[in-house]
């Protein structure tokens, strides 16, 4: 049984010609992210800033948001935010962090339950006190930094340090711009988002490694080819793999986005973006960066001689 769709020919796209646009685009994106992050900040979920989140379903029919809001406002628990989501019966209620420590948060949710009265099914209630919120931020930032560090060290081990720089920069770019996506659209940034970001870091580096592997292999094979040509060749040779893999992962994530329900929406959006930006950055950031950090080709060729003698060479 033969495949129905085959990419028969190795494409000859001059990626290096476009890399300036890539750098410029990414530069702008990164700067916009940083500016937005500093000016507007992120729409942090309660995992990070504390507070109360209640997903309530009005059992008898469409929920009366105004009445619910009035009841909650009467409690003087700060400015409650209410919005329907999914169906008109379902309401997402957010109460801000209460002054007065952990006990005050617990009291607030109890009061809210009493104020809203019967006839409401509490599908989800999350209360995060101030002492945990700060820890979660620290743990999250630490995880991201450590992950990047660990990945860089791994690349360093497997490749030469120049590759490590390229991989780290492009992964950092993906992480930053994913945060940017959340800053631009003010999507809720919570623990699941953080998980998505780390997964994106893993995916993006994965993509970069495949290309770097090929660049290094070509360096051994074609010792006289210019670095620019080499990078182009490696990108073209791995292009079909890049497209196929990004497609399968994107299919899986799309299924999650469409069918996975409200709880996974933020995660799926982050992942989808991350896959796109991760693939883009491997092609237009990570690979061209090698041209600028100039890996030591002689050393790479030598390590090849020592390890696997007899690998065929291109005719001179």
């Amino acid at each position, binding site marked *: 049984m033969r495949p129905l769709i085959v990419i028969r020919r190795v494409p000859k796209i001059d990626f290096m010609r476009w890399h300036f646009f890539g750098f410029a685009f990414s530069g702008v994106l990164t700067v916009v992210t940083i500016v937005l992050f500093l000016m507007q900040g992120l729409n942090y979920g309660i995992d990070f800033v504390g507070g109360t989140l209640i997903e309530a379903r009005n059992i008898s029919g469409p929920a009366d948001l105004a009445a619910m809001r009035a009841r909650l406002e009467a409690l003087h628990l700060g400015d409650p935010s209410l919005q329907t989501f999914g169906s008109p019966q379902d309401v997402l209620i957010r109460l801000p962090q209460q002054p007065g420590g952990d*006990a005050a948060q617990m009291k607030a949710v109890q009061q809210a339950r009493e104020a809203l009265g019967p006839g409401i099914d509490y599908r989800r209630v999350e209360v995060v006190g101030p002492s945990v919120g700060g820890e979660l931020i620290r743990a999250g930032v630490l995880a991201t930094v450590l992950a990047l560090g660990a990945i860089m060290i791994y690349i360093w081990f497997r490749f030469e340090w120049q590759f490590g720089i390229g991989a780290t920069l492009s992964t950092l770019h993906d992480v930053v711009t994913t945060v940017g996506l959340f800053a631009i659209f003010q999507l809720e940034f919570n623990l699941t988002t953080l998980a998505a970001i780390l997964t994106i870091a893993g995916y993006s580096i994965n993509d970069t490694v495949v290309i770097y592997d090929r660049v290094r292999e070509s360096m051994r094979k074609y010792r006289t080819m210019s670095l620019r040509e080499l990078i182009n060749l490696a990108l073209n040779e791995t292009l079909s*793999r890049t497209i196929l893999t990004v497609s399968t992962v994107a299919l899986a994530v799309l299924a999650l986005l469409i069918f996975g329900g409200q709880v996974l929406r933020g995660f799926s959006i982050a992942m989808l973006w991350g896959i796109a930006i991760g693939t883009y950055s491997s092609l237009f950031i990570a690979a061209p960066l090698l041209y600028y950090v100039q890996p030591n080709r002689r050393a790479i060729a030598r390590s090849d001689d020592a390890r696997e003698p007899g690998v065929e060479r291109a005719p001179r």
Partner: protein
Amino acid sequence: MLYFANWKILVIVGACVLGVLFSLPNLFAPAQLAWLPKAIPHKQVALGLDLRGGSYLLLEVDVAAAQRDRLNTIIDNVRNALRDAKIGYTGLNVEGDAITFTIRDLDRLDAARQALGKVDQELTVEVANDGAGAMRFSTQSTENRRRQAVDQSIEIIRRRIDETGTKEPTIQREGQNRILVQLPGVDNPEHVKALLGRTAKLTFQMVDSSVTVEEARRGRMPPGTEILQAVEDGRGRGGSAYLVRKRVMVGGDTLVDAQATFQNNEPVVSFRFDGTGAKRFGDATRENVGKPFAIVLDNKVISAPVIREPILGGSGVISGSFTVQTASDLALLLRAGALPAPISILEERSVGAELGADSIHAGAVASIVGVALVVVFMVLFYGLFGIFADIALFFNLCLMLAALSLLGATLTLPGIAGIALTMGMAVDANVLIYERIREELRSGRTMLSSLEAGFTRAFGTILDSHVTTLVAGVLLYWLGSGPIKGFAVTLSIGVLTSLFSAILVTRLLIVTWVRQLKPKAIPL
């Protein structure tokens, strides 16, 4: 390439069979599981609270508060010790984690050090040469006390929760002084929270009637007494206060039973002392007939009845303005015992059973659709080899489920996302191998050597990409909490199983195909 040692085949096939076998129970409802023959494994993947519905509470034991309480009781001994040794001092106080004071007689510092050293073995005494002094618990004893307090709290929380009839609660230590409570099936934990939030320290203390509360407030406080407020009774009363002797006649730790009952149609709590408690209570009541005593719960007076006759039977009744609910809660708390330190609730996450079921449904649909899309995609782009990859993917899924079941890992909604994602990423290994085989074919190699080269050359790349994902997974597991841990677990397990299935299973399939059917060309 064609050579595959028999033992290797055996291992691969064996692993796949075991994977299928151990993932099988997950297809059945728990009720159906009971009907399966004994030879088939029964262990299912444990569902997280976000999928089965329930409450997750993160508690913190306020060890510092317990320590402050203890310092406050010790401060009397310090005062006595200094007075007995006739050493002048000022500013005796509890500040933070220490008892602080200033010795006035600077030439008697050594005597002061000696006298204070005998107060409590666990306290270290520091008196500087200018007379400023502090007594603290040694780090060792603080550490011991902390551990003890948390262990005891876990025990008492377990008892309290068991009394409420919650099924299969999980109560475990988290970090240094935190306790994680998981209550499956509880979607409104307000009652449990109310029960956990109370220390429930019950004491019986004599009321001092030598002066009125007003007089005591104005500064004529008799030594060894304190003013305690009455419990608010919910009817707007309360606010009254009592002057109570600090010395405890009998403590709640000597209770052996407490029950909510009725007396004159009012809900009350009846209790029974153990031997020592009964004797102490009997003695105290015999000496104080006609005087009132206070029943104090968490530093608030429930009631202050007058002792009409000595109570020698070792049992009694607490009446106050109880409702049926508050009476039965108090009885429950007294039976379970007092917490060694106050507890605060840091985090609550509750999911209703309905949302949990919806999430399972959504996760399952998303995974099935995702896997189906990937399967079709692989066949479209790789034909027969795509089917091989799909078979490997199937075993990968089985192995993942089997590993999750066997490890007793908890499957959460993000965990399901992890599975769906892994399915998408797992075929990456196949894509890498197949693309490589194609390239080798294009460069003019023979069929067999292309296959061989495809696998060996792609391996390094596959390993690199898996390791990097694994790094992210392990870090997530280490630093994440709750549902995120669930995601990290499935992601990491998925990376490992896909390494096995995508490389070894696919390879075995291709080798078998080549051997059995002796194809002339590779359909790629």
